[in-house]
C-alpha cells in the first residue's frame, strides 16, 4: 500500500465516510456568545457532552464517549500544565488546539490502521471583553475553524449543522434572555434530531412540544461561562429543571 498513494487517499476517504456514518445518530450541541458569558447546551446522560476544561474554557462534543473522554482529558492536562508552568492567563484555545489537539487528531485520522476518533467538538474561551470571546469548531480529522458567528452548532453532518446555525443566528439576533435562547436552541436540537428541514419548519408549538417530549428521560446539560463571576473558575452548571428536563446542575 505504501507504494500506491492513491490507495492511501481512498482509504482516508473511506475513513471519513466511516466516521460520519458512526456519528450519524449523535445528539447535536450548541454554543452561543452572549454579553454576560458563553452558553453551551447539549442533551446527554449527565456529564457526557458539556465539560469544564479550565478557568475560562469549556467543551461541548458529540461522539463516542471513550473518544470524548480522551480528548477532554488531553485538553485538561495541556491546559493545567500550561497554567502551572506559565500562568492561567496564558492558557488559550489558539495554542491548545493549534499546537495540541488538532495535530493529535490529524495524526490519528491519517494513521489508517488505527481506530479513528469518533468525535465532533466545540470549544469556548471567555474573555473580559465580550468582543474577544472565542468559539472554535474542531473536527474529527483535526481541522478547525475559529467562529466568526455568535452561534455555533456541532452536528454529525455539515449540511444540517450549517442550516441549523443559519436559522439560529437569525432567531437569536439581539436576544439576551437566556431561558428564551435555551428554548430556541432546543427547538433546533429537535429539528436536527428528527431530520426535519429548516426550510419547512413545523410550528413553534410543535417544535417546543417536540423537544420537551424527546428530552423527558435525558439530561439537559447547560454549561455557562460567566463573565461576571469574581473567582478564577468561571464555569457553572445551570439548572435545566425549569425547562421540564433532568438537569446536570
Amino acid at each position: 500500500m505504501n507504494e500506491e498513494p492513491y490507495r492511501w487517499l481512498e482509504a482516508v476517504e473511506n475513513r471519513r465516510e466511516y466516521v460520519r456514518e458512526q456519528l450519524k445518530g449523535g445528539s447535536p450541541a450548541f454554543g452561543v456568545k452572549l454579553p454576560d458569558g458563553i452558553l453551551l447546551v447539549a442533551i446527554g446522560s449527565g456529564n457526557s457532552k458539556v465539560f469544564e476544561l479550565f478557568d475560562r474554557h469549556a467543551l461541548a462534543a458529540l461522539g463516542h464517549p471513550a473518544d470524548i473522554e480522551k480528548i477532554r482529558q488531553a485538553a485538561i492536562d495541556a491546559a493545567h500544565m500550561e497554567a502551572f508552568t506559565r500562568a492561567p492567563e496564558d492558557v488559550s484555545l489558539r495554542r491548545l488546539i493549534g499546537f495540541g489537539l488538532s495535530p493529535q487528531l490529524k495524526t490519528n485520522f491519517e494513521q489508517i490502521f488505527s481506530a479513528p476518533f469518533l468525535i465532533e467538538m466545540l470549544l469556548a474561551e471567555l474573555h473580559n471583553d465580550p468582543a474577544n470571546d472565542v468559539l472554535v469548531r474542531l473536527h474529527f480529522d483535526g481541522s478547525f475553524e475559529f467562529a466568526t458567528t455568535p452561534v455555533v452548532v456541532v452536528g454529525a453532518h455539515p449540511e444540517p449543522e450549517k442550516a441549523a446555525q443559519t436559522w439560529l443566528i437569525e432567531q437569536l439576533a439581539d436576544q439576551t434572555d437566556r431561558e428564551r435562547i435555551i428554548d430556541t436552541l432546543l427547538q433546533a436540537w429537535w429539528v436536527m434530531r428528527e431530520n426535519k428541514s429548516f426550510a419547512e419548519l413545523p410550528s413553534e408549538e410543535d417544535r417546543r412540544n417536540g423537544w420537551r417530549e424527546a428530552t423527558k428521560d435525558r439530561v439537559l446539560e447547560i454549561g455557562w461561562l460567566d463573565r461576571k463571576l469574581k473567582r478564577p473558575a468561571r464555569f457553572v452548571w445551570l439548572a435545566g429543571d425549569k425547562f421540564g428536563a433532568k438537569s446536570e446542575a
Partner: protein
Amino acid sequence: MTEQIAGDFLSLLSSQRVPVLTAERAPAVSNGGTNAPVQTQATTVFAFHYNDGVLMAGDRRATAGNVIVTDRVDKVIDIDATSILAIAGVPATAFEMARVMQTSFEYYRRSQLQNLSLPAKVRALARLLRENLPMTMQGVGVVVPLFAGLDTQTNPPQPLIFFYDPLGAQFQAVGYAASGSGSGTIRSILSYQEKYGSPKPSEMNLQQAVQFTLRLLMTASEFDAATGGINPETNTYATIKVLDADGVRTISAEEQSGFLKGR
C-alpha cells in the same frame, strides 16, 4: 515517562518531568552557613471556629532578618471554593505549595468530574510538606501551614481546621490553631477566651469574630516585631477569610474597618 495516576496533578507534572519542591533543587547549604540566604519569613496566622463557620486570618508583614520587606503580603489564600490555606514560614516555598494545591484540586475536580474529598486535600498538603523535607532539614525552606476545608460528608457541611508540623504530620484543631512567630501570643489569648471569656470564640457572630481577630493581631504585633498588626490610619488591615457551608468569603478592608468600629 512515569506512570500517571488518574486525576493526580503531581504525577502529571512528574510524567512531564516538571520538578516541584524536589530535593535536587535545594541548595547545599545549612541554616546559618556562610552562603545561606537571608530568609523572608516570620508571621502570625491563625484560625478559629466562630458560630457560623471558620475564620482564618493573617498579618501582612514579610521580614528578612531585621528588615521589613513589605506590609502587603496575603498569607491566607483561597485554594478552591471550599478550602483555604494560611502560610507561615518561607514564602518562596509556601506560595509554591499553595499554587500546587490550587492547580491540583481544580485539576482533580475537572478531570475526575467530582470534588476531591476533604481527607484527600488534607493529605495533599502533608505530602507537599514531606516532599519539602530536604529544604526543611537544611533550614532554608521550613513551612508550617494551617488549612481549613469543608467536610461535605456531614449534613450540613462542616468547616474543619487542620494544622501541621514541618515534616508533614497533620492534626485536626478542636477550637483553634495558630502558626508563625507571633502564634504564642495568639494561642494564649484564644485559650483564655475559650475557657473564661464571654462570648467564647465559638459563640461569636461574624462581627464579633472579626473584631476579636483584629485585636488579636494588634496584640501579637506588640510582642513580635515580625507581625505586622493593623493600622486603621493607613488603611492597613489583615487578610481575613471565612469558610462556612456556602464556601469561602473574603472580609474586605472596608468591612474590617466597619466591624472594628462596631458597625
